[in-house]
């Protein structure tokens, strides 16, 4: 089933490449794309913990991304040392996730999805009302701005998220989450607390999203404070997860890379139609290839005989496939 040594080797190699790029890379465009990929990949991976492992579809994920961003930004621009701001943001996000999770996680499936959507939109609109003005880095910081800091922060957050995901995948906690995903009642029958596992998944997922938000706050020069709360971030995260392969570890990262790079390399004349294309691709994935790129790649490798069955890119089968039952 799992080939941890092989997976770790691949991840380590990837990490090495990205670190080198961060140290020697000169092109602003490449660095920007990389940072955006890291952020989306971290956001997507964090969503995957709740949606892919624990099976709870949250449509309000951006709320935690935005919360992490706004707390970090306001404290940092207000004079607090950056690291402290991030820590404070993390604490705030964890508490918020805990508070919001208590009522919301009691709801099953569609009610949960709608509840999180409501939360996301409510928070997004409220922040827009309460903080309408642009948030910009002060002139001094602007002059000293380099890509190095944001690059390695974003990369660091992604590494943390991936490591957490890897650990979860092989841990008892993670298995409990997946048991809840597959059959909540059955899980309860064998002593796995559904609410408890969902809660942990929700808080972990939110916390990591908050960290990704902190990296957004560090990277972005000037933006409207409600932007990181916008539902488009949730959508892009879910898009990346599904296109890459929901429930896998590599999936969200691959999907994020695919999306960010794809969006950047498409000719600019297409404009909004990019969104249309990705939307269509997403729909195709949901209907036809629930395992995303990871599943597609595994099938191809399977057929070519290069790789033994089951030892795919992430070392595991993709989860989250849809059931066709009955009529």
């Amino acid at each position, binding site marked *: 089933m799992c080939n941890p040594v092989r997976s770790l080797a691949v991840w380590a190699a990837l990490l090495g490449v990205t670190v080198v790029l961060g140290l020697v890379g000169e092109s602003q465009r490449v660095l920007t794309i990389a940072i955006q990929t890291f952020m989306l990949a971290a956001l997507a991976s964090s969503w995957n913990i709740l949606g892919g492992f624990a099976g709870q579809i949250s449509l309000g994920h951006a709320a935690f991304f935005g919360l992490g961003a706004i707390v970090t930004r306001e404290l940092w621009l207000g004079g607090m040392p950056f690291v402290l701001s991030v820590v404070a943001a993390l604490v705030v996000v964890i508490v918020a996730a805990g508070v919001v999770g208590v009522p919301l996680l009691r709801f099953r*499936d*569609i009610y949960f999805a709608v*509840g999180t959507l*409501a939360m996301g*939109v409510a928070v997004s609109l409220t922040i827009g009302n309460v903080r309408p003005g642009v948030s910009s880095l002060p002139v001094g910081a602007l002059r000293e701005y380099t890509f190095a800091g944001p690059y390695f922060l974003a990369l660091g957050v992604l590494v943390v998220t991936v490591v957490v995901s890897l650990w979860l995948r092989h841990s008892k906690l993670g298995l409990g989450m997946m048991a809840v995903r597959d059959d909540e009642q059955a899980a309860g029958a064998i002593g796995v607390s559904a609410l408890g596992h969902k809660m942990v998944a929700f808080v972990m997922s939110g916390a990591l999203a908050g960290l990704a938000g902190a990296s957004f706050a560090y990277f972005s020069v000037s933006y409207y404070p409600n932007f990181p709360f916008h539902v488009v971030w949730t959508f892009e995260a879910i898009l990346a997860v599904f296109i890459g392969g929901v429930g896998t570890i590599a999936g969200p990262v691959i999907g994020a890379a695919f999306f960010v790079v794809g969006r950047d390399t498409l000719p600019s004349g297409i404009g*909004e139609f990019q*969104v249309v294309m990705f*939307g269509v691709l997403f729909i195709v994935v949901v209907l036809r290839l629930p395992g995303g790129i990871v599943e597609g790649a595994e099938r191809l490798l399977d057929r070519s005989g290069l790789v033994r069955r089951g030892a795919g890119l992430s070392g595991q089968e993709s989860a989250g496939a849809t059931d*066709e039952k009955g009529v």
Partner: protein
Amino acid sequence: MSRLILQSAVSGLLVGGMYGLVALGLALAFGVLKVLNVAHGELLMLGGYAAFFAFTTWGLDPFVSLPLVFAALFALGVVLYQVLFRFVTRFDVETRIKNSLLLSFGLVLILQALAVRFFTADERTISTSYSSMGFTVGLVRIPLVRLAGLIVAVIAAVALEWLLRKSRFGHAVRATAEDWTRAALTGIDVGRVYLVAFAISAGLAAMAGSLIALGYSVSPSIGLGWTLKALIVVVLAGLGSMRGLVLAGLFLGLIESLAAVWVGGPYREVVALVVFILVLSLRPQGFFGRAHV
């Protein structure tokens, strides 16, 4: 102070009528097809734009163009069903809901992006000769166009109820909504019921959009906000129940408005969220729903 409260209450009721109308279409699609279309608000938005352009290009009064707008989005609903949602109906209920949720989420951004591209991001409002007219009852001012919207909402709800209770098609719809297997065994073409029900739901969204363009405003990004309110109304009334949607809508609008006076305007969106959580926690079957769904 009491004038503010009364005016807020009235405004809340008026917008609540719109919430109810939007909820009507959403509940129809969900109740019959067991499909959750979060892009319902985008269909509303497109209907609003259709009415707007019918007005600015051909001078058609929005009440006159209502049936046209309905027909236009009905047609779009047919297309969306055939191309997209039809495939979701293969699955069992749980998977249907999850997949349609994801699918329509994708549709939300596609339609929004297209709208920005073709209509620009500007807010539009239909300004007719009577747009600023209203009448004053005591301390309270009632805008004519919004009141008309509420009236249309009530008429639509009554008409839909009549259709479902009395017509042959309505019987087929109710049978399919309860048990599609049994419905097929009764000789009902379930696929066709799904198609028409979904298209009607799109048409209803369009009607709401038209009235909203007249009484409030439309822009490419309004969709999700309205969908959300509609979802909350559907849950308040009780998933699977068509009756009492307008009432639940009025309730939500009223509570929202009054609470906004209390907590302050910028936080009014949070009120709806809190109402949602409270009702679901205390009375999961909604006001009018059955204990089981």
